[in-house]
């Protein structure tokens, strides 16, 4: 994992999560703003997956368990997708809150992935 990219991702996921949580509680239905924010989080996660796949090849080796890391990597990728599909099926305010929950979970999981990658 690359430090600046990881922390930029965590910040964006946190911001997107909080935005969706606030807008959802305020009663907004899923729109391009909230869905776009989660789509951005997803696109960054795809980039993160590619990064993690090539990092060991260019001398950036994980210190923790590779198996545990990849379990997180796959799960974290699915999370925003599921939330977005759900928001398309049910276009209500609570779906926006779900997008927010997904964003916060992504941020926490990215941090855990960083800990696994860097700590022995």
């Amino acid at each position, binding site marked *: 994992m690359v430090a600046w990219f990881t922390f930029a991702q965590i910040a964006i996921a946190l911001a997107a999560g909080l935005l969706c949580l606030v807008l959802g509680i305020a009663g907004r239905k899923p729109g391009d703003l909230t869905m776009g924010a989660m789509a951005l989080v997803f696109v960054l996660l795809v980039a993160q997956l590619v990064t993690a796949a090539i990092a060991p090849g260019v001398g950036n080796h994980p210190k923790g368990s590779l198996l545990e890391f990849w379990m997180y990597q796959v799960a974290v990728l699915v999370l925003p997708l599921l939330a977005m599909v*759900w928001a398309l099926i*049910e*276009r209500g305010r*609570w779906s926006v809150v779900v997008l927010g929950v997904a964003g916060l979970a992504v941020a926490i999981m990215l941090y855990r992935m960083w800990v696994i990658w860097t700590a022995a």
Partner: protein
Amino acid sequence: MSESKSVTARLSAAMPRLVGTGTLTVLVAVYLVLVMAAVGRSAFQIIDHFSKAPIAISISGVSAVVYLLATAALIIHKGAWYRVAWVTVSIEFAGVIVVGAITTFWPNALGPDSGNAFGDTATVWTVFGQGYWFVPLVLPLAGMLWLRKHPAGIRAKAAR
């Protein structure tokens, strides 16, 4: 309104529609995150180092099954599943209280390092769910609250 022309609206129009699940959506979403956490955590522990703390890791596996069942029961919440929801959510609450207390007051009772909520023998219930911002402690209460407020289930209401 400009919202009717948004990308989200167009995509959504092509999808099946479900309305009125309300707060159950959020409850199930948080449950699904914990299902993922408990299943992922226990699967890794069992594959990677089961022998390090068989008791703690077995509890971790049991918690994964409980969350999975509770989530399924909450989604269906009809007929017998309504009762299954009550039973599994209650087991979940008992689990976080009992395992939480044991791991807090007797940190090594369930195996080495089992009192460390961030260690590799932790369960989602260790130290009352400390590793998950205590969400495991609050979630069963939220589940019970929802079940109490919807005795017949929302689908039964919609059918009338």
